[in-house]
């Protein structure tokens, strides 16, 4: 009985718990369009998951990403 619990019931319970946890702690930060200034190509749009708030500036390669095409509202990295 003890072996049965160790071999089958505990792993099954672990899988169910992990899937449940994944859904329970699901954070839905949707992607949005961001803009950056390319020195040659000009303002470029990209799809990004960077939110409007945070501490570390959102970067696309060496370029800072902004929320608007005028490049005035910066976007931030989702989390460090």
């Amino acid at each position, binding site marked *: 009985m003890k072996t049965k619990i160790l071999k089958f019931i505990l*792993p099954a319970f672990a899988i169910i718990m*992990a899937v449940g*946890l*994944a*859904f329970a702690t699901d954070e839905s*930060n949707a*992607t949005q369009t961001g803009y950056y200034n390319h020195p040659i190509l000009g303002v470029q749009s990209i799809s990004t998951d960077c939110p409007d708030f945070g501490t570390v500036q959102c970067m696309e390669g060496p370029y800072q990403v902004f929320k608007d095409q005028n490049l005035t509202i910066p976007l931030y990295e989702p989390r460090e």
Partner: protein
Amino acid sequence: MGTTRPSNVIITLISIAYIILFVYTAVSKLMHLSQFQLRLERMPYMESIAPWVAFGVPFVELVITGLLLIPKYRLIAFHACLGLMTLFTAYSAIVLNFSESIPCSCGGVISAMGWKVHILFNAFFILLALLAIFQIKKHKAQLSKQHTT
């Protein structure tokens, strides 16, 4: 018959810890696959292989989970766990030498950890995998000794 050795209990508990970790992170990544791919594309050295890694990592995590469920394949599974966790940790450590902040694409609440905490967390799981490998090998050696005597 039907008795459980302490080493079996340790191995099972470590398997469960890895099953929870891998199923949780794989499901979290698969729920937001495009977002996971986007984050990978922004990580150093990952741009060109991001689509492959985005599918590959959760797939490998689920395959390892499957192997952990079958006692016969647990030794292979723990070697794979050790390899994967070492790879994640080495990549994080290398990248952190170049940048203070890199977008984490770890899945779920694990991405809320700071990078230093994340490396410690990975190191703890590496130690668990090593302990499990050691216990399985010890158990196998004991079994073969019993058969020969």
